[in-house]
């Protein structure tokens, strides 16, 4: 028995409104499960940004290419931690892989994840960096030299034919990669969307909404990282690049926003039996996180900010520093907005009773595995991993817009 749990549950009782089933006092998927789709969303989004550069050959955004790949990798490595640590029996996690039940959406996690990590992301990163790693190793000494040698799998071939092969491989991987990125996050949406018992989740639109919010969060995060890291590493932010990336972001936010709006209108229009309790929940428990943070601060304000700069940039040659500031604020707001989206889906989906007669409440812990501290750790960890990754595979040259070494230039073709 866990006396602490019982104590917490006791504290919750007075905050319950209406009638809920007695087993529903405990909210089972807490902060960690909010973090999980947020992180996989960044992975999918960052990868799709990288693919945009590749597939549509958008030269302006080239500086973001390697950074987004590394960001995707850093976040992907953390994704399973959020999922596994919330289990009642983390040590049995392997059961999901050994005896997966094919009818379960969650059982597919390991396979989708492994496919994406091994077959898409790592391969793409390897092919992008292969010739560079060989070149770096030549001018290095000591540990780094060994690391790069080993990472290049001791290949030394920088001849035309092997470079041409790299490019071909990259093309194939990108083509396979885009549907895979969609799969990765669409599947996370499906975990929720397929729960018919829960009308807040059970919607065919959920995987698609997840996907577009993923694209939004990924692009916004990579822009943010680019704007922070470039000056830190002695480069100059290319406004052409940021403007273009913000364009993508802008359209992605609009699509995301419209999808959510359609979903919302659809629910209200259909007005099934759960609508009363859901609207009560939105107006009371989720008001701050849904109306204020997600919709207002996370979408409408950034959309307005970006469109204003778009309009005035041409008219008044809006000052670059001011534009930077506005973008900076916008991408940060968008991050908070997307995090709130995840929160509202995951926590919101558990706040109303399946009796449709009452609302329970969520109390965030501070310490402990399900607590705030650990969640912050999980959110910070990818940044640490990214720092290590950029030590090993520095993307600075490309980010600073210098003529890229062979690998990149060609990769853009």
């Amino acid at each position: 028995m866990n006396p602490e749990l019982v104590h917490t549950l006791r504290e919750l009782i007075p905050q319950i409104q209406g009638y809920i089933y007695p087993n529903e006092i405990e909210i089972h998927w807490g902060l960690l499960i909010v973090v999980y789709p947020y992180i996989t969303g960044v992975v999918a989004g960052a990868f799709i940004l990288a693919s945009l550069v590749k597939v549509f050959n958008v030269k302006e955004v080239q500086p973001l290419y390697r950074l987004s790949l590394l960001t995707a990798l850093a976040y992907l490595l953390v994704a399973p931690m959020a999922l596994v640590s919330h289990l009642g029996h983390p040590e049995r996690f392997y059961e999901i892989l050994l005896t997966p039940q094919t009818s379960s959406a969650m059982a597919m996690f390991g396979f989708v994840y492994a496919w994406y990590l091994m077959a898409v992301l790592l391969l793409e990163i390897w092919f992008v960096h292969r010739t560079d790693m060989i070149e770096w190793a030549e001018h290095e000494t000591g540990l780094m030299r060994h690391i790069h040698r080993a990472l290049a799998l001791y290949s030394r071939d920088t001849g035309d034919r092997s470079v041409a092969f790299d490019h071909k491989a990259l093309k194939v991987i990108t083509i396979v990669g885009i549907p895979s990125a969609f799969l990765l996050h669409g599947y996370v949406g499906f975990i929720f969307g397929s729960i018919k018992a829960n009308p807040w989740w059970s919607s065919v639109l959920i995987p698609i909404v997840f996907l577009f919010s993923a694209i939004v969060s990924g692009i916004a995060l990579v822009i943010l990282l680019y704007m922070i890291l470039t000056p830190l590493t002695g480069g100059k932010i290319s406004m052409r690049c940021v403007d273009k990336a913000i364009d993508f972001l802008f359209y992605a936010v609009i699509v995301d926003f419209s999808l959510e709006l359609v979903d919302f209108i659809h629910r209200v229009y259909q007005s099934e039996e759960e609508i009363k309790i859901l609207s009560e929940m939105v107006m009371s428990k989720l008001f701050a996180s849904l109306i204020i943070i997600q919709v207002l601060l996370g979408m409408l304000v950034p959309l307005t900010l970006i469109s204003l700069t778009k309009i005035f940039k041409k008219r008044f040659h809006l000052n670059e520093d001011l534009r930077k500031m506005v973008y900076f604020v916008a991408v940060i707001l968008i991050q908070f907005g997307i995090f709130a989206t995840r929160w509202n889906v995951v926590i919101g989906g558990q706040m109303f009773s399946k009796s449709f007669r009452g609302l329970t409440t969520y109390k965030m812990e501070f310490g402990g595995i399900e607590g705030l501290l650990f969640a912050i750790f999980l959110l910070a960890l990818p940044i640490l991993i990214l720092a290590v990754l950029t030590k090993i595979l520095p993307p600075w040259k490309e980010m600073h817009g210098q003529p890229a070494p062979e690998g990149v230039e060609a990769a853009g073709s």
Partner: protein
Amino acid sequence: MPLSPFAGGGTVNGRRTFLRGFFSVLLSGGAIGGILKILPSKADAGEAPPKGQNWYGFGVSVDKCIGCARCMEACKSENNVPREPFFFRTWVERYILRKNGTTTVKAIAPNVEPSPETASDKSILRSFFVPKLCNQCASPPCVQVCPVGATFQTKDGVVLVNENTCIGCRYCIQACPYGARYLHPGTRTADKCTFCYHRISHGLLPACVEVCPTQARVFGDLNAAASPMSRFLRMNKIHVLKPGLNTEPKVYYASLDGEVR
């Protein structure tokens, strides 16, 4: 019989088998076989059981329940359910419908006499108790979603949890539309009503059925025409909870009010 107690009995089953056969011919191949399992073929759900095989069901007479909570007590001690009021395999709800159209619902607490407000309060239209437990769905969403197969359905139609393989992901708790599951704080695995499987497999009645002083709870084999369960189904107008979700519950309610969800 008012409701088919079997997982797709009769014609439905025939059509389902046909459709499934049709699609498997159409889309044969290993990977697609996997997808077919996701389709609502209920690959994991019990088929109409062969003759001679038990297929358990549960009956509840809402009229007869007096809200004494003995079933809840019996269940907790029989099945090692934590005593704290946050974990239940079975519970009893009290409904009070008022003349002005409002309904209040409460889960009753053991050892607390239900207040006698009904007799004096003239605004009350009617009031009644509804015992709840896992519906042992014939098409259980909790089985469908369990990633490791720890939640499974036995041949006799009872849904059980294997606490040695459950990873405690709580996906099943989310998927159960009836709030029938909780995470056992001791074992850290999912838990719920088992129809007292350890008792019924020895020919005994579930503990709650045995202690119920008014026989509001009935248990038995739906396949046996002479069982009290079959009699209960014959003699009453039967409803199940949330029929629209197509979970095909095997807990059947007599005199169920439309307000109950």
